[in-house]
């Protein structure tokens, strides 16, 4: 027992590992924020493309469906290796030396596929009569989408979006495999240098401390919505 506590919960090692792990963790935060910004925008565009009406838009819809199928089905770890490998070819300005950018690209590719489905579910949950009412007033397809469908759709999917955001936040640690020195890499360096695993505990604490407020915020939003909806039925 004493051995276990010393290996994972040593106060001395906790304090000594913290600065390095914190430095690595800042990289996780940066990856998460940059990737999420791209994901939220790209996924919304893809969801809109997937909902385009008419036969003419069919090829675009298929592309959007193919994209989500492909990247939702491929493990992030594999996508990271693929992007890093592809970058060695130096196509389209990519470089195997730009580790941060390659990491962001892989995270965005995979999470955009998940979040597209979240947005799509939201858009489909808005009753068709809402779009019809908007069109009947003389609003164009895009105006009806922008002012009537999307505001209602996005409001409904905020909780699942936050869930995926938490998932993304944790998955940023995987970039360690292409050589980015993020929190886990730092913790591992520490444990091999000092033969003590407390650095990993420090990492866990950081991630948990980051996730809990987000989770509570999600709960809060769900509760608020329930309250509003209950008020509606009175």
């Amino acid at each position: 027992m004493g051995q276990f506590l010393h290996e994972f919960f040593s106060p001395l090692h906790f304090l000594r590992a913290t600065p390095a792990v914190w430095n690595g963790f800042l990289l996780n935060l940066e990856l998460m924020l940059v990737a999420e910004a791209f994901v939220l925008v790209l996924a919304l565009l893809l969801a809109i493309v997937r909902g385009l009406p008419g036969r003419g838009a069919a090829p675009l819809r298929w592309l959007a469906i193919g994209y989500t199928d492909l990247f939702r089905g491929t493990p992030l770890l594999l996508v990271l290796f693929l992007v890093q490998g592809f970058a060695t070819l130096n196509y389209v300005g990519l470089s195997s030396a730009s580790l941060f950018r390659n990491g962001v690209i892989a995270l965005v590719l995979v999470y955009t596929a998940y979040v597209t489905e979240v947005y799509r579910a939201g858009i489909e949950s808005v009753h068709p009569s809402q779009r019809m009412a908007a069109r009947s007033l003389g609003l164009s397809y895009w105006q009806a989408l922008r002012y009537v469908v999307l505001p209602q759709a996005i409001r409904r999917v905020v909780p699942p979006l936050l869930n995926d955001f938490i998932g993304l936040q944790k998955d940023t640690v995987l970039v360690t495999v292409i050589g980015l020195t993020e929190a886990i890499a730092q913790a591992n360096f520490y444990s091999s240098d000092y033969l003590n695993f407390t650095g990993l505990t420090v990492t866990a604490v950081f991630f948990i401390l980051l996730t809990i407020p987000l989770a509570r915020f999600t709960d809060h939003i769900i509760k608020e919505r329930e309250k509003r909806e209950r008020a509606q039925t009175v």
Partner: protein
Amino acid sequence: MSANGHFVSLEGVKKSFGDLEVLHGIDLDVGEHNVVCLIGASGSGKSTLLRCINLLEQIDAGTIVVDGQTITGAKIDVNRLRQKIGIVFQAYNLFPHMTVLQNVTLAPRKALRVPRAQAEGHARALLRQIGLDDKADEFPDRLSGGQQQRVAIVRALATGPKLMLLDEITSALDPQLIGEVLELVRELAQSGMTMIIATHEMSFAREVASKICFLDAGVILEEGTPNEILSSPREERTREFLARVLEGGRL
């Protein structure tokens, strides 16, 4: 006005959903400032007909002329057209994420590009006319069904339409809320608005309609003045329908 002097003119309008033909060739003329009521059982094609006139449904055959313009032809700007033709639905279909004022000003501001202050002034004036100016900043779910439907009518009026299509707008309302909505429609009729109204309210139809059309299985089986249709219908099917409606009313 179209060539034959009617504000709205339908000729041989057909509409199918898949294999099911819902409208089997509808001919209908509506004069300017006239009110035409469509009566008939659920599924007789009343709603579909109104939606076709608003181009929410594409017709398969025939022509529809509104205000001298053949709206079923090619190269029609449907968004422009719909600003001239208001439609109100049974289920109100107000936008729940917007206040009453935002509901009413959305189309004028975004489709007609009216400046915000002007659109809001106009909307508040319209809401004052129906006694709901104090609800302008409420969300629709805070309003009663009757109030919501009146807001929906005002929302449709806000783009200045010349023709109003009302699709069973009192069918979802509690009986005690129907009166206030019909009163608003009555005022619209008196102000000279051209309207086509699908309704189950026979006494209301008798009062406001210049013409009543009985739809049965996708055709206008019989049309005439309220007296002709409601008091001495020629067709057996019309008599049956009216008997059923009146019986329902007694219960």
